Structure formats: structure tokens, C-alpha cells
């Protein structure tokens, strides 16, 4: 297998817009959501059950520090989720509720 074949070209389908806690952000379609959030700001994108701020760290699906709510689905790994136009993203604050969403 050629090493090069394991890499995909950066998506060229242009910029899309999505919601992030009510703010409208713009990012290239298809890039990891975590990358888009980091490009937007270095601020926290989730809070732990103990109230500590976190954001994406490993970018490869391992550390779970990039959890956000995407289209109502809590605890979604932003680093494993491609950006799509119109998606509604919220910070994951504390533990998820049984019926989805988080405490605030």
C-alpha cells in the first residue's frame, strides 16, 4: 500500500456555516468539527462533571476531551465529526441528561 493513498485531499467543496452555542461560524465543509472549533477560538468546548474547562486535545478519537452536542446528540466527539452546513453545535456542559442535552 502506498502511504500517500492513506491521505485524503483537503475538501474543496467550499465554506459552510454552522451554529455554535448560538454563534454562526464558517469553516471548510468536511474538516473535523474539532479543528473548526479550535480555529474559531482556543476557548473551552466542554466542561467536565466537576466544572473544569476542556477542549480538543488528541484529535484522533482517543481522549474524549472534544465532546460537544451535535444536532441534539450529546457527548459527540468533535474530532471524529466532519463539519456540515447547518449543523447545530453546543458545548457539552457537565454530564449528559438521560433524554439528551446537558444540564444548562
Amino acid at each position, binding site marked *: 500500500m502506498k502511504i500517500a493513498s492513506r491521505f485524503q485531499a483537503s475538501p474543496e467543496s467550499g465554506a459552510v456555516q454552522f451554529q455554535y452555542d448560538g454563534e454562526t461560524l464558517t469553516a471548510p465543509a468536511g474538516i473535523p468539527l474539532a479543528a473548526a472549533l479550535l480555529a474559531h477560538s482556543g476557548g473551552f468546548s466542554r466542561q467536565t*462533571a466537576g466544572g473544569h474547562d476542556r477542549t480538543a486535545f488528541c484529535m484522533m478519537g482517543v481522549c474524549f476531551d472534544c465532546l460537544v452536542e451535535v444536532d441534539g446528540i450529546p*457527548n459527540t466527539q468533535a474530532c471524529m465529526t466532519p463539519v456540515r452546513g447547518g449543523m447545530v453545535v453546543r458545548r457539552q456542559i457537565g454530564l449528559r*441528561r*438521560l433524554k439528551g442535552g*446537558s*444540564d444548562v
Partner: protein
Amino acid sequence: MAQTDADITIIGGGIVGLSVALGLLLAGRRVHVLDGADSDARASQGNFGLVWGQGKGWNFAPYASWTADALAAWPEFARKLSDLSGIDVALDQSGGYEFFTDMDEMDEFADMLAQQQRHLGTRFSHELLTGDELRSQMPGIGRDVVGASFSQRDGHVNPLRVLRALRRAVAAAGGRVSMGAQVDRIAPAHGGGFDLALKDGRSMGAERVVLCAGLGAASLAADLGFITQIRPQRGELLITEKLADRLPFLSSTIRQVDEGGVQIGGTKADAGMDDSETLDVMAGLARHAVTVFPALANVRVVRAWGALRVMSPDGYPVYARSSRHPGACLVTCHSGVTLASLHASVLADWIDETAAAPDLEAFDENRFALSSVA
């Protein structure tokens, strides 16, 4: 012969061995615990954490009684653990359910509980609820649940914290725990006591030994003349992501850990020493949980694992003294969490043969000799 300064050497540093060690330490004995290798089958690191009585001993009154004593002794035990270790084991004894989706199975279990009730009288209580009664009391119970039994004495703890608390409590009470000390052979020593040969080539002496090595006890039990055959029984478990809400119930198969995750388990399989998890059993567990409480359907499972229960031939505990080698005891059981409260208290009297010793004759291993003759 190499001598140690301990009166009693405990072989096995899981929940059973450490509980026994703690009881003996609190009774004033000097205790050395030999804990095996990380790779050993460690029931104490894979279990479910129930402190449970429902159904136990319905067909064997001494076990029903011993379990009822254990439930009653847990609050004091949890306090003692917390005092000695600084760790809160999250004991919650606010009652537990057994849910049914099959009426015949429920009727059968109801008969068992009636027998258990006859054994225990006022030391036990249970009620039977229909599916509709459950759903009116607890919104969210699935429509395929035909009923449940409930016992207000059942409960659960955080089992990993129990293990850690026991470790710390044993150290705080002056016990010594050696890690990576796998005992390979035991032989009676000249002039009394025992010589222990460790797998790494070390040897040590022991005045008295209590064998609490779970599945690791098989060959050592035979060395000491015990006839109990211990077998593994695999259980598989799932745990979900943590939830901010509390589940409205505790059941023998679905429990919410104090930290928020929902643990689902209760399967039984004969798979030898293979403790791996299997996809079909995991799927069955998930289906069961969603049947009982449909809101769990969109909650993620984050880990699954298998673990091996420690089973005697009849499933009941064994408390036995070696007739051939005085000074050697065998303690083995499946319900090491539930029974820990007694292992860490009155069992010390039995090991020391004091006047206060509980009557554990019914748990001697001679019951297996009789059944093999019959």
C-alpha cells in the same frame, strides 16, 4: 525455614482476602496478605457491586441467613472502611428490583422468595408488583416488563472503591500486603506451620494460612487436602456514559454507579478461564436494559468486559478448616462483595475459633464429599 512476623498469612489479595485480613487485624492478629499477579483472574476487578439478598439461599437456609446477616452488617462495615481508609464506598441500601419479562419466570422466582421468606421471617421482606403497578409508580419502565419483585434490603456499592478502601484499611490497621506474590505450592513444615513456594522462586514460612485465592485456589486447595472444586463462571458487563440524572431504580441487572454510568450485567456462561466479552451477549444485555427502561436506548455504551465468578460446586460459600493440616482454612465464595461485611468481622472469630465464632458448619466442604458418595 524462613519465618515471618505474621500470625496468619492470607493467600489472595482480592475483596475476599482483604476482608478476611481486615477482620483478623481488627481482632488483634498480625496479618500478611500475599496478592498474586496482575494477570490473574481477578473477580474483584470485574464485578457488579451488588449488596444483595433477594433469592439467595431460598433452597439453603444457612446461606439465606448468612446473607441476611451480611446485609445488616454492611452499614457498620462501610463506616469502618471509611474511617480506616478515608474512602466512601457509596453504599446505597435503598432497595432493589428483579424485573421480569416472562410471567412463568416471575412465578418461579416468587416461589423462591416465598421459601426464602419462610427461612428468614422478619429478617427479610419482599413484595411482588405487576407491570402496571411498576409503571404507575415509576414512569419510564418498559411495557414488556410483566412485573418485578422488590426487596427493601437490597443495595449496591462502588466495587472498585471497596477494593481500594480495603487495601488502604488493611494497611492502616497494620497489615502487610505483598504484591506479585503468586503462591505456587504449599507444604506443611516440620515442626508446624507451612512452607510456601512462590512462582518467582522465593519461599517463605507461615504459621497459619487462610486460602482466599478465588480461582487461583484450585491447586493450592488440593495441596492442603481440601476437596472443594472451584470453577469459573463468566459474566459479561456493559457500562454506559455517565448520566446527570439518577435512574429511578436499582435492579440485579441494571445499576447506576454513584458516578453516573449505568452498569448492565448478569449473564452466566461456562467458558473456562476465557474472560473475553462476546458481541451477542453484549447485544442481549443492551436489549434487556432497553426493554426494562426504554430511555436507555440512546445512551452510549462506553466499555464492555467479561469477568469470571468464583463458583463452588453448589454455588454457596465454603468455610472449611483442613483436617489434615491444622492451621489452614479455605474461604471461597461467589458473593465476595455482599459477604465482605461478615468476612471483615465475625469470620475472624471463626478463623480464631473463639467462643464468639458463628456456626458455619453448614458451609464446610464435607457437603461435597457426601454428594459425591450419594
